[in-house]
């Protein structure tokens, strides 16, 4: 069963992302800060990464932790083409703007997990 790491400081958003993916056969890991994310980073098969965290910028975290074998999907409330480009340059495979529908999240996650396998 693939493991999804949700890196997001809003507890309710983590809950809602989990609920959106509840019909899928995934297990979840959750991190509210960059420091927590760093601990769980290597255990995930796919990472949903909020770009604005309380202790660090999501893109800085990405650069600091280096390339991951798991695909990383950037998540942000502030969508600009510039930010999307920066996320892709930093190593993200995709980009989601909050709020997104449950099916958008499901399809994005599914797509990148099947691309991996």
């Amino acid at each position, binding site marked *: 069963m693939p493991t999804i790491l949700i890196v997001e400081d809003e507890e309710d958003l983590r809950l*809602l992302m989990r609920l959106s993916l509840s019909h899928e056969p995934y297990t979840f890991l959750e991190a509210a800060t960059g420091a927590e994310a760093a601990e769980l980073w290597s255990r995930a098969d796919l990472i949903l990464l909020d770009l604005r965290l309380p202790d660090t910028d999501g893109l800085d975290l990405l650069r600091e932790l280096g390339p991951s074998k798991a695909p990383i999907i950037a998540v942000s409330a502030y969508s600009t083409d510039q930010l999307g480009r920066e996320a892709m340059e930093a190593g993200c495979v995709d980009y989601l703007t*909050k709020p997104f529908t449950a099916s958008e999240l499901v399809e994005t996650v599914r797509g990148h997990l099947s691309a991996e396998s």
Partner: protein
Amino acid sequence: MTEVVDAAESGHEHVDTAAPADVSARLHRLERQLAQIQRLAQFGSWEWDIANDVVTSSDELYRICGVAPGELGPTYEAILGLVHPDDHDMVDDAVHRAIADRASFALDHRLVRPDGEVRWLHSRGNVIADGHGESQRLYGVAIDVTERSRSEQFLREFIGNASHALGTPAAVIMQAAHVLADDTLGTKDHDAAMGALLRQSKRLHDLSTNLFDLVALDKGAPSVMLGLSMMLGPVALADRVRKAAAAIPPADGATPTIDITIDIAADIAVLAEPIELERVFVNLLDNAQTHGGPNVSVTASRLADEVIVDVRDDGAGVPDDHLQDLFAPFAKRQTAGQGPGLGLAIVHQLMVAFGGAVSYHRAKPHGSVFTPRFSVD
């Protein structure tokens, strides 16, 4: 002696019949008035005799520049030398364009005082041409707009922070609506999503109420605030602290429940408004629950003309780099999922409105002590 002031200069015909001594006294008085006006309005004036490169400046201009009159060479380059290096070319260009076009200029720029302090100035100048249309003299004023620039910057930051703080729960609410729109969601998941929706709606509501109150408080009108008339009078402290302790929002899974001990003599009264006094303690205790805890005590001591209250917790304490702006709106208190807050900013504003104050110090060996100080009459 009769002196006729040029009608073209004064704007109207005027005959002065004063004696020379009176004229001198009047001139002296006018000079003094001009200096006082400049001081009050924080503007300095200057005049540059371009051909001879001699700049005459008012005392206020020297004061704005942070130098004593005469301390600075009376040349254009000497004055320009005080302009911030990043603004130097912009100012020099504006001045030379005005001279070439025999026109005026107006711009905002920084200057660096000899002690290193940076001030913002609004400078305006105008050229006086000689009979042949050649630029002869440049005169102008410089107004110290540092405080205005600071408050504009504060406002910009405040609006940015407020947008982010309001935008976050709004985004979660929209996300919850998307999840709830899924009709295959089981009852348990539906209730969980509904819980998130309600929590975030409340957060959005509380935040917008606090923002409104903070703006109302910031107007500094203690008698008419918060949309209600705030009548200050003696209020029994212990009652209100007990009510506040009962009213703090229940701890959710993310925050540990706190144990509150209240030790306040029943006859202690402070100058306040009852509902807003309760709010001070709701905010301080909520803050202790979120950032401090788990053991919180509220104690009060009565001095001659004030009552000092300690709200003490044995948590981690406020990190050093958060101390500076602790009572400012949206101060950085980086706890995951909490977002920046207005609670302590409102405590500060309310305490000022009560004629008191609030301060913070670190508890020994660890923890936080918030100390509201109240007047008693």
